[in-house]
């Protein structure tokens, strides 16, 4: 009967004591290097400004753990990569846990208390689990190698849109080499681990306590059988084992020591980044503290420590690069490259104990590591990047803060400058007199209440485009009609309403935003109402998420939820189910920003439309290109615009009749794009409100039904 105590692996078997000492010395050395490297990273983050983490760290840790264990953020939009990463992650984690378990017994429990547990059944199950873990790790790695080397997905193309081949920091081969080195070194560790297992088995085949239980290490056993099959003897196996042991050990220790210096650090930086995640990072931008002298980010040390950490969390997965509408249409912006540039810059300037002169810390420009004006102005602040990043990097606040500095310096397109001056003067981007804000209501049979003079249930915040743009004025009139027919008690602020400021803020004119928000909040506070409703997703976002920081907390809903309620409660009755084949474009500021994906779809269903979603829908909706102030900047001539790209996507839907939007800027951008892409006559663009109007009984039809236009 074999004593279960002997069913185990003797560590350092047949090693001279000096060898063991040397090994431990190297081991501690490796740990030392690891700790020192970690310190350098932490010292780098400390150069950043302060940041207060909201909420309890414990609950954040729990959330982060759940996210990591489920790999929720990694499987999104790339199940294969997510799955393979899970294999690597769990394989590595198990192997690490396993080694730690052995250490606990060998280095702590046994010497101190004589206790042992790593033997017998525990040891056997342990061996099995770890073999499987090693297989998972190896399998995942091989898949990733194949993906990177053969599949070559576009998002792993590191070519930069913001640099030309002659620029010194254009070449990305350093990153590529690092990526492959990472994969190969881990794979070598895994493979040599298995070979080592096999060698030991062959070497100790004469011991029944080893050989009889070999299949508890199935891979190692397979290797052993194969080696024996080709005639490997026990003694030779022992020699190979000795050499391979050191090889495997040294590579593993080197790997660990180099973690803080290589991509492998994402193990820590990614999890920390996830733990510090601000779910409203893009929706609710930070105020400029009153005490602050300068505005926005001029230097790398203006970033707060959490943002410096974000820079290190990025693993170049390319999801943001792929999702960005500016990048997709050839603009010199890739969110990935903004982060990587700044990371390179931080590593160059913040790597030592002393800070270089401030002038060398300037992150604006075209030198290596800097971000250019053209890059920053290309951003649509659509938050596709922030939304999809698996490690919770928050690109948008960094871009907007850098824009704040550009605005301060006046480095903007002249058209944008003009628009900001117009908004400052007239409170709207059209330059119209404030008195004309309510002019669109004159076409209505029944006047709309003035919420400044009498209390109402709903305060309708209309927004610039819906008030002044002729096409959108029609939509406003239609919506007013629907509300009146449903007997909703609502009113307007008329000429006390100004531009809500969402895009002004995202352009970086924080002073103007302050002015607008404060004025609007004052007007709202002087009015009496229960809830705000708005037809403009941009206004919706800023009032909902940002006005609170300026002293205005109000209940607000987007018209889609209100209309849905009116339809479900029967206050609006569908008398003519439309039967159109439609697709729905999720507006960035309603969908991604505020998770408002369902109400519009429910409405479309209720009015009898056949909805065929585009591939890039819901959280992956493709921005029309007007956000971030881009509607106030001219587009480069001769290049495809995001709206055109999007319409072409819709055109793939067979038999599409209506492209449905629920945002005034979308309506403008897409109607234009339908014409310029040559799709006029194939399908039309309609605001959801207009479709509801068609489907609901009404005495007067304000908009010609879709069929008549075809």
């Amino acid at each position, binding site marked *: 009967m074999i004593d279960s105590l002997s069913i185990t692996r003797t560590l350092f078997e047949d090693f001279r004591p000096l060898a063991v000492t040397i090994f431990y010395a190297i081991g501690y050395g490796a740990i030392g290097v690891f700790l020192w490297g970690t310190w350098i990273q932490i010292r780098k983050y400390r150069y950043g400004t302060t940041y207060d983490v909201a909420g309890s760290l414990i609950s954040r840790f729990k959330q982060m753990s759940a996210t990591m264990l489920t790999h929720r953020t990694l499987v999104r939009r790339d199940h294969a990569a997510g799955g393979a990463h899970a294999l690597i992650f769990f394989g590595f984690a198990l192997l690490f846990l396993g080694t730690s378990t052995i250490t606990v017994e060998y280095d702590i429990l046994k010497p101190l208390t004589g206790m042992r547990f790593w033997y017998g059944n525990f040891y056997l199950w342990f061996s099995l689990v770890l073999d499987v873990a090693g297989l998972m790790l190896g399998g995942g790695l091989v898949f990733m190698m194949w993906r990177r080397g053969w599949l070559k997905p576009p998002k792993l193309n590191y070519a930069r849109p913001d640099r030309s081949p002659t620029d010194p920091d254009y070449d990305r081969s350093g990153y590529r080499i690092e990526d492959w080195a990472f994969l190969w070194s881990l794979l070598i560790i895994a493979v040599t681990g298995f070979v080592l297992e096999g060698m030991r088995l062959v070497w100790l085949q004469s011991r029944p306590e080893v050989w009889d239980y070999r299949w508890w290490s199935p891979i190692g056993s397979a290797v052993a059988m194969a080696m024996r099959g080709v005639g490997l003897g026990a003694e030779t196996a022992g020699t190979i084992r000795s050499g391979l042991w050191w090889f495997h050990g040294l590579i593993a220790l080197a790997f660990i020591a180099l973690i803080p210096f290589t991509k492998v650090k994402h193990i820590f930086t990614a999890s920390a980044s996830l733990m510090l995640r601000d779910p409203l990072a893009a929706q609710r931008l930070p105020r*400029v503290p009153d005490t602050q002298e300068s505005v926005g980010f001029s230097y790398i040390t203006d970033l707060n420590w959490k943002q410096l950490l974000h820079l290190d969390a990025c693993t170049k997965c390319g999801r943001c690069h792929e999702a960005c509408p500016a990048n997709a249409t050839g603009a010199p912006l890739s969110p990935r490259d903004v982060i990587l540039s700044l990371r390179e810059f931080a590593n160059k300037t913040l790597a030592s104990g002393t800070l270089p002169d401030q002038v060398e810390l300037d992150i604006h420009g075209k030198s290596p590591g800097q971000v250019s004006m053209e890059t920053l102005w290309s951003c649509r602040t659509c938050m596709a990047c922030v939304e999809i990043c698996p490690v919770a990097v928050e690109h948008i606040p960094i871009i907007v803060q850098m824009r704040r500095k550009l605005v301060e310096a006046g480095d903007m397109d002249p058209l944008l400058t003009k628009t*900001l001056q117009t908004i400052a003067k007239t409170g709207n981007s059209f330059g119209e*007199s404030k*008195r*004309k804000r309510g002019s669109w209501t004159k076409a209505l049979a029944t006047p709309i209440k003035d919420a400044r003079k009498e209390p109402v249930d709903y305060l309708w915040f209309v927004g610039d485009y819906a008030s002044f743009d002729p096409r959108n004025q029609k939509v406003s009139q239609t919506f007013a009609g629907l509300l009146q027919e449903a007997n909703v008690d609502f009113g307007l602020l008329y000429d006390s309403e100004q531009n809500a400021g969402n895009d002004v803020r995202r352009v970086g004119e924080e*002073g*103007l935003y302050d002015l607008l928000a404060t004025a609007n909040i004052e007007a709202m506070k002087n009015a009496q109402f229960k809830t705000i409703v708005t037809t403009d997703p941009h206004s919706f976002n800023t009032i909902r998420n940002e006005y609170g920081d300026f002293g205005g907390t109000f209940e607000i809903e987007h018209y889609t939820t209100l209309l849905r309620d009116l339809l479900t409660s029967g206050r609006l009755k569908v008398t003519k189910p439309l039967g159109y084949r439609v697709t729905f474009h999720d507006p960035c500021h309603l969908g991604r920003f505020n998770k408002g994906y369902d109400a519009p779809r429910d409405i479309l269903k209720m009015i009898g439309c056949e909805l065929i979603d585009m591939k890039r829908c819901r959280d992956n909706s493709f921005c029309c290109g007007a956000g971030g102030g881009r509607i106030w900047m001219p587009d480069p001539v001769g290049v495809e615009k995001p709206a055109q790209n999007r319409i072409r996507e819709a055109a793939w839907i067979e038999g599409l009749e209506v492209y449905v939007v629920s945002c005034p800027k979308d309506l403008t951008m897409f109607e234009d794009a339908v014409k310029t892409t040559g799709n006029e006559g194939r399908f039309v663009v309609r605001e959801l409100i207009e479709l509801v109007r068609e489907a609901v009984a009404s005495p007067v039809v304000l908009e010609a039904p879709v069929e008549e236009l075809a």
Partner: protein
Amino acid sequence: MATKILVAVKQVIALDEDFEIRADGKDVDADFFLRDLNEWDDFSLEEAVKIKEAGGEVEVVVVTVGPEEADESLRKCLAKGADRAVRIWDETMEGSDSQAIARVLAAAIKHEKPDLVFAGVQSSDHSFASTGIAVAGLLGWPHAAVVNQFDFSLGATQAVIRRELEGGVLQMMNIDLPAVLSIQLGINTPRYASLRTIKQAAAKPIESWGLSELSLSASDVGEAGSASRVRRMYIPEKGRAQMIEGSLAEQAAKLAAIIKEFKGASV
């Protein structure tokens, strides 16, 4: 010795929608006034600040003649780089025309003793196009109007300027300094003053002068000191085009017909 550039600016008035003439028929009802810095002054101030930023000891002083509301425009100038701002006003200055304003500005210049004076070619509200040059006339200074290029070195006694004439023609000229120049649009690209810098400029003081500081009397200003007097202000009857109605297609067709008829007739 610092070079002082004095920039005379004006807060102009634009009229809001559906404005009405005042009961006395001599001006528009002030309820409809929209105030802003004169567009030309963006350019003249920018030209002065550019000289300052080119190096050397330069002080830029903006001066305006106007009531308290004009402080807002002065703050904008301070935000854009002016070092000091002065507002001159006295109730008796109400009703001053271009010549009376020029008299006040001339007194201010005697007080400030600048080395250069900039003004805009005209103001966007009343477009007299003469105030700046009239100041030069009162002081006997060299002057030139409609300048769209100014090559200046600190301490120089002459400068090369370029005038923008009618019909797209430009003319180079050489002028003695110190001088009064009226600056034309397009001479430079005025910088953007962010709302924040304007707000911060609110902390800078605005000097306030009246008649006594400038040794002027009530007869020098206001209607008494003006070269003209408003008899009546009225909204002119505008001629009206014959509007072509109809759908877009109909309108285009009608216009195309007009064009073709014209071309047929002129062949």
